[in-house]
Each structure stands twice: as structure tokens, then as C-alpha cells.
């Protein structure tokens, strides 16, 4: 599903090179539930950006769902993000002027799917996260937990091979956070591949596999029993 081979990401800071990723090799199979765990500055955000096709590595090869994506153009990356990746962000990142349903429809709009099919798929996705009664609410009319569920529905709606969640519980109280983790577990049980990025050991412990990263390198990779 995901294969990262010898990935480097180097930023220039004045005269010195900063190795945000320093030779990362990682393989994630279909229907895995992986937590990428590391403190801030460890390179986990850079790794997420590369896995999420928001950024390209300085060197190395990235194979996503059988396609080499490390050397693609901006527009090609946009297409890959649209079809292969469902993002869930710490800040929810919903568009304030749009209703829950419209937010969930957004990725389908960029795929050029017809309005009636869009409505149906978006409604189904919102049902899966338990928000079928909040379709026409705007983000600020929803609680944090509900907003994050809308964001998950948006990530699910295109049925992407990977759901990439960046600190999804970081802005939530513990009860809402637990609900969101429960949704991820259910999605995993339904066959989705989930990559969770976090700095929180307790959250990471709820995944099936933990990849620990520090100073741009993987220092631990273990299954959770």
C-alpha cells in the first residue's frame, strides 16, 4: 500500500542543511492501523506531508498504491491527494461558509462527480460517523467532536486507500477524543487503512502498530499486542 524507500528531506537553513527526514524506510500494508509517534521536531509532520503527497522528498522513492509518486507535479499530486488520501487534521479544517454536507461533498466536486451522486455519497459518509441529523449545520454550529466527525466523513467519502490523520484528537476533550478514536477503530475493522500521526503515547497505543520517529529516523517499529 505505502512503501517509502530511503526517503530524505533536507531543508536549507542559511549555510547548514537540516535533515528533517534522514533515510526513512517504511512499509505499510493494506488494512493496517499504524500510529507514527514522535515529539515535535522529530520529523513526523514532514513524514506526514510526504505520505499525504502534500510535499515531495528531496531524495528517495515513495510508492503509493502501486504508483511512484515522489517525482510528480503539483497538479498530479493534487489528483493523487484527491483519490488516494483522506485527510483528518488536528484543526478539523472545515470550510466555515459550507454546511456539513457541502464540506463532505467538496472532494467529490473536484472529482467531477454529478450532484445527485455527490449528495448520496456524502450523506452515507455522514451516516457512518453518526451525523445523519446534522447535514445542514455549519461548522460553528457543531461541537469540536462533531466537527472532527464531519472531517472524517470528508476523508471517507472518496473511499481512499489511506486515511491520514494528523493529531485528530489534539483539539478535543478526552470524551470526544475517545469517540473519535472509536470511529477510527470501527473504520479499521471495516477494512480501511489508517495512518495516525501523534505525539501522545496513549493515543498511539490504540493503534495496531507503532512507528516511533526521532530526529528524522525511525527508531522503533513494533506491533501492539
Amino acid at each position, binding site marked *: 500500500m505505502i512503501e517509502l524507500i530511503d526517503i530524505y528531506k533536507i531543508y536549507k537553513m542559511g549555510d547548514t542543511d537540516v535533515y528533517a527526514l534522514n533515510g526513512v524506510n517504511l512499509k505499510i500494508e493494506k488494512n493496517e492501523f499504524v500510529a507514527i509517534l514522535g515529539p515535535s521536531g522529530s520529523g513526523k509532520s514532514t513524514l506526514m506531508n510526504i505520505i499525504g503527497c502534500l510535499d515531495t522528498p528531496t531524495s528517495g522513492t515513495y510508492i503509493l498504491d502501486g504508483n511512484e509518486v515522489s517525482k510528480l507535479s503539483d497538479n498530479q499530486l493534487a*489528483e493523487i491527494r484527491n483519490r488516494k488520501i483522506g485527510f483528518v487534521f488536528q484543526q478539523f479544517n472545515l470550510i466555515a461558509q459550507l454546511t456539513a454536507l457541502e464540506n463532505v461533498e467538496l472532494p467529490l466536486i473536484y472529482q467531477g462527480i454529478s450532484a445527485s451522486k455527490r449528495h448520496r455519497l456524502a450523506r452515507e459518509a455522514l451516516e457512518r460517523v453518526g451525523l445523519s441529523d446534522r447535514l445542514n449545520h455549519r461548522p460553528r454550529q457543531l461541537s469540536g467532536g462533531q466537527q472532527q466527525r464531519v472531517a472524517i466523513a470528508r476523508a471517507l467519502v472518496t473511499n481512499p486507500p489511506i486515511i491520514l490523520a494528523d493529531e485528530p484528537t489534539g483539539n478535543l476533550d478526552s470524551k470526544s477524543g475517545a469517540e473519535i478514536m472509536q470511529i477510527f477503530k470501527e473504520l479499521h475493522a471495516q477494512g480501511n487503512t489508517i495512518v495516525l500521526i501523534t505525539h501522545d503515547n496513549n493515543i498511539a497505543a490504540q493503534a495496531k502498530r507503532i512507528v516511533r520517529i526521532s530526529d528524522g529516523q525511525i527508531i522503533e517499529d513494533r506491533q501492539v499486542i
Partner: protein
Amino acid sequence: MAQFILAFKMAIKSILSNKLRSFLTMLGVIIGIWAVIAVVGLAQGSTKSITDRLQQLGTNLIQINITGRGSNRNVTYEQLQSFVDQHQDDIEALAPTLSSSVTLKVGTQTHDTTMIGTTADYSVVRDVNVSSGRFILPIDVDKRQKVVLVGTYIVKKLFSGQNPVGQKIKINGQVFTIVGVLQERANSQEQSDDDQIIVPVTVAQRLTRNAIIRNFALKVTDPNKSDAVMQYLNDFLYKIYNDTTSYRVFNTAQLLDTLNTVTQTLTLMLAGIAAISLIVGGIGIMNIMLVSVTERTREIGIRKAIGAKRRNILVQFLIEASVVTGLGGIVGIVFGFLTTVILNRFKIMTAVFSLPWAVLALLISVGIGIVFGLFPASKASKLNPIEALRYE
């Protein structure tokens, strides 16, 4: 296409979510389009009223204007009259006209007006009739009778509307007898056709100390003969002058053509000046769009993260800009339309609402949105999604 409609809906949403700002952004375009529509309406309105007056003169009128200076080589009224007599089948009548400004005096009241010296045929040539009294007779011309016909404005002003036939009036100090009142032609307004007097041409020559008559009007029997008559009039005059610059022969149709060219140029110039405010409006659009792009950096990041391509973002912002300016254009057209209606209703000026110009104005305002939205939209489309998502 579906994406176009959605971008359109999004544009309406973001306009509505920021009503005051959208209105202020539109204001430049509103004022610009309003000015263009009003100016063009006024220009076309005044052209129309002048054109109407010219057309009243009739299409079978030909005018001769002698511009040459040489007095020893000149066409006289008698020469022209005998020429006209030879072409009685084509030419109905000829009238010399000698116009000048004069001062009228009745009792202690004075009034400056236009005096036309002419002959009895003037009434045929220019379709001028009297509402009371009589027109100039050939004997008045021959005997240099000091008789005068007055327009209705003069009757209104100097005789408080009373029939002045038989009364005396002083023209530049000389006493004349009023023999007739001209029929009303232009609502008895000042400086219109109703504010003039007519005297025998021979009297006018003396009064103005001007022996040479430079203007003649003649009426052809059939408008279709107009071109042919002009042709042999030109030939006749060329034989006298041996020079085409010393005289001009023209008819109303030509005059209308010239007038139209002049007013079109004038209209374009005025509209051009009004269009400057459209450019200013466009710069306002660009300014606000740049602010909006900055404010919505995060939204752009989200859209890019979930799969929007550069083109999608570009189209979205371009549509937003052109919807704002398009709406501004529509409001401007409505205001322009109301302006023409009000000007006409209260008879301030004649104004015409021009539909082709309104359509053009709408297209221009949408175009302004696209042109001035291009830079901000392109800036938005080039944002890096990672940085955009991190933007607070």
C-alpha cells in the same frame, strides 16, 4: 460546467457572508457603469432631439453656402433665380437667406434675436406659415418695405402674448411694421425657431450693410431628385467660381451624417472618461481580492489538500471577482436607467436608455472582474498547501 455552477454558488455565498465589503468593492464598478450609461443616454438623447429638428426641415431641402471672399466674382440672387427658373421641373422654389443678430425694442423693452432676410418663396422652401397677418410679398422685397414677421416667443416676450399685427417695432433703431406672426414650431422657447424675425431680404441687406447674400435654400420637387439637382448646381457654381472651395452645396441628409459622426465621437470620448472610473473600480477589486486571498489562505490550503488543482482555485477566484463586478454592473445599469427616466420625466434633458450599451457595459464589468481578478486568483492558486494549512 458543474464546477462552474458550484464556483458561482460559492461566490454568491462569500459575497453574502461579507455584504458591506462586497458592496464597497462593487461601488467603483457601480459608479463607473452608472456614469457610462447616463452619459451615453444623454449624448444619444441630445443627438436625437437635434436630429428630429433637422428632419423637420425635410429631405427635399438643399442649401447653398458661399464661402469665397472675392466680391468681383460672385453669384447673385438674380443669377441663381434665373438658373432655378430654367429647372422648374426639378426645383420648386429658391429663397435667399441673410441672417444676423439684431436688437428689438418695443417701448422700453429690448430683446436680442435672429433676423432672417429673405423673399416670399421662403415660406414654400422652409414650410413656414403665418398664424395671423401675412407673409412677405414680392412687393415688400422690391420696394424695400420695412415690414417684419415675428416668432411666437417674441410675441410672448415683447407683446405679452397679444396679437401684434399692425404694431410698430424697432429693429436696430429703425422702425418696422409687424405684418404677421409666424406659426409656432418649438413651444415658443427662447433661442428656438420661434425666437426669430423675418424681413424682406433687400431691407436686411441695408440694415446689416451687407450686399452679398451668402446663403440660399432651395426646395426640390421630389426628394429623389435631390442628388441630381445638387450635381448640376455644383456644375453651375463651378463655372462661376472655377474653384470648388468657394461654395458648398449640401442637403439635410448630409448634415445629419456629419452630425452623427460628430456626436458619435463625442459620445465615445465622454464614455471613455466615465470608463476611467471603471479602471479605478477594477483596482479596488484587485485590492480587496488580494486581502481576501490572504484571509482565506487556510481555506485554499484545505481545498488543495483534498484535491483542488491550481485551475480549480484560479477559476473559483476569477468567478468570485467577475460575479462581484457583474453584480456591480447590473446595479450601475439600473441606476443609469433610472437616471434617464428621471431626466426625461422632469424634462431636465432628453436622455435615451440604450440597450446595446447596457449589454456592453455588463460585459465590460464582468471583463474587469476577470482582468483585475487574475493576479489575486493566480496568487491564490500558487499557494503551497502545507504553508497554507499552517496559516493562522
